């Protein structure tokens, strides 16, 4: 088991003929993902590494029964691409694109509300279910099928954590990058609920950062609903207020959204908070060892 995606997931890559789209579609396919279609308007009939290209997502769905979309469309057109996927009946939309205007995402999020479609991202590395399917830009080789679910607002910091889990022999079930933007499709709470229900996931690592209060809200939810051990890390304890740290969403505003605050909320909810990012793996190992009484 895993969450959201597995061997049976059928993927369409929007923006497949672009430099990033073609590179990562090929990488995903090589990992074992069923990449069954690509979309670039005006390029129907072409192929990318044996993957057929269609003009519209609607055509791709009709011809290939794809159910999940991976988006590499540039920022000015990405909102349109997300809505196109949703309208074509795609159930899971994973948007990698970084730099989409916030007000575009405000409209997209409102338009998706109440519909049977889930958006992951934007500005995220994607989703991977170890040894089954990779739908994103993460390096596949650092992942190994195992016991830990990962939820993160970051890209390379997630790879850091995953690498520690794999090296220690713990392995992962599914790793989800939820994105570094202020407005994202899916937050911690939905994913924590899925990991709680997944029989293979024994613990969850959640990686947060400064900005907003998503981690605080997740903490309140964990306290009431999550029985499995959750190990949390918050990046940016040294970040100054009022400055955007790379991610559009990583900014302390009005003294709110600091790492210290978030760590305190998580700790109060029973989450095991790691202060040193080099010790995420070790902390999970300790939490899962039979002698540990967490």
């Amino acid at each position, binding site marked *: 088991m895993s969450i959201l995606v597995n061997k049976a997931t059928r993927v369409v890559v929007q923006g497949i003929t672009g430099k990033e789209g073609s590179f990562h579609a090929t990488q995903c396919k090589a990992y074992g993902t069923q990449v069954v279609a690509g979309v670039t308007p005006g390029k129907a009939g072409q192929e990318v590494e044996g993957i057929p290209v269609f003009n519209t997502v609607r055509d791709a769905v009709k011809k290939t029964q794809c159910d999940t979309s991976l988006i590499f469309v540039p920022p000015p057109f990405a909102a349109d691409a997300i809505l196109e996927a949703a309208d074509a009946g795609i159930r899971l939309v994973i948007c990698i694109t970084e730099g989409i205007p*916030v007000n575009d995402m405000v409209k997209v999020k409102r338009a998706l509300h109440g519909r049977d479609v889930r958006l992951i991202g934007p500005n995220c590395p994607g989703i991977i279910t170890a040894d089954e399917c990779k739908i994103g830009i993460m390096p596949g080789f650092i992942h190994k099928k195992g016991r830990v679910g990962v939820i993160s607002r970051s890209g390379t910091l997630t*790879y850091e954590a995953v690498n520690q889990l794999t090296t220690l022999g713990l392995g992962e079930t599914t790793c989800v990058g939820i994105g570094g933007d202020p407005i994202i499709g899916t937050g911690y709470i939905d994913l924590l609920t899925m990991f709680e229900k997944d029989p293979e996931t024994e613990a969850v690592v959640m990686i947060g950062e400064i900005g907003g209060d998503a981690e605080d809200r997740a903490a309140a939810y964990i306290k009431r609903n999550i029985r499995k051990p959750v190990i949390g890390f918050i*990046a940016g304890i040294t970040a100054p207020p009022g400055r955007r740290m790379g991610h*559009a969403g990583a900014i302390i505003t009005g003294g709110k959204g600091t790492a210290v605050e978030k760590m305190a909320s998580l700790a109060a909810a029973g989450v095991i908070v790691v202060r040193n990012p080099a010790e995420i793996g070790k902390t999970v190992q300790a939490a899962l060892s039979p002698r540990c009484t967490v």
Partner: protein
Amino acid sequence: MNIHEFQAKQLFAQFGVPVPNGKEIKTPLAAEKWAEKLNAPVYVVKAQIHAGGRGKAGGVKITKNRAEVPGLARELLGKTLVTHQTGPKGRKVRRLLIEEGAGIAKELYLSLLVDRDSGWPLFIASTEGGMEIEEIAAHQPEKVLREPIDPAVGFQGYNGRNLAFGLGLPGLEPTIMGPFITMLGNLYRLFMEKHASMVEINPLVITTDKRLVALDGKVSFDDNALFKHADVQAMRDLHEEEPLEIEATTNNLNYVKLDGNIGCMVNGAGLAMATMDVIKLAGSEPANFLDVGGGATKETVAAGFRILLKDRNVKGIFINIFGGIVRCERIAHGVIDAAKEVDIKLPVVVRLQGTNAEEGRKLLLESGLKVDVATDLWEAAQKIVALTGKKRKKAAAA
């Protein structure tokens, strides 16, 4: 991106949000001419810098005497203002806003931003204008009104009524109701059309002659949407930005200058923050945030090096790369090339992990460069802190 108060007020005027009659002024002579033309009972001379707290720092002067205006302008222009938001170095005043003063009957607070949780635009208002909203929220949370706007339909009359009645406007000044609600709609239009990330009017005042006026104005824009608005881009004032940060932006690097002395270069924003944190845990302070991005090349690494070395506080450099799409051997080549180009005398620790990490480490070790190579994050952080710590002690002894 932030803009000056005078620019925010120009935008307000353009969108039908009432502002005092005022003008951007750069010389005492221009101040004299403008004051003559303005011919107001009260003149307000305001320093224009991208930081709050100007009033307390002496950056706002008020006079009833027109003849004093040029003198006040001379006093402020070229002065360095230090406020709680500028840092100890302060900001040099290069321009002023000179406007007519208003008789204040009541000060309100109003702002508009996007609520991250719901994803809806949100008006925040309070009767306690003039105070910082965080202050009001902390001490009198019941005085903070929140009105979310459904982005599917935009600002509606009822949103305006909720706020107007919530603020008790009919009791304060009934004739202001209509203009207030119209102004809210105009602000919403400005916010969405120009892709603002925040609009704040503090204070929004009701004048003694029963007008509604935005006495201050702050607007910031979504950097991701600047490509849509040439007019907004034209308002950027490079004087208000850190020179090294401007250089970084032109090289497609994401850099924020900090006060510590270990320069760091990392791929990915989250890992870059975590690297700063780990430097602190190891006993030192980071000199910067620098994300070379997912597509780091030899050229970006070299550009990153140049920027780090221009910061005089930097005593050592920590490069932390987790190769995913970025291949570590390319980063290693970048470090080697940069070292040839810019003579690096400081200690450097390079930690490579992920795609082709071993190849990258081998390249560095065989390059003859004096760089320390590491695999583990914690080990690498301790190494660079130890190396720079020693340096500092030596300097202190000498």
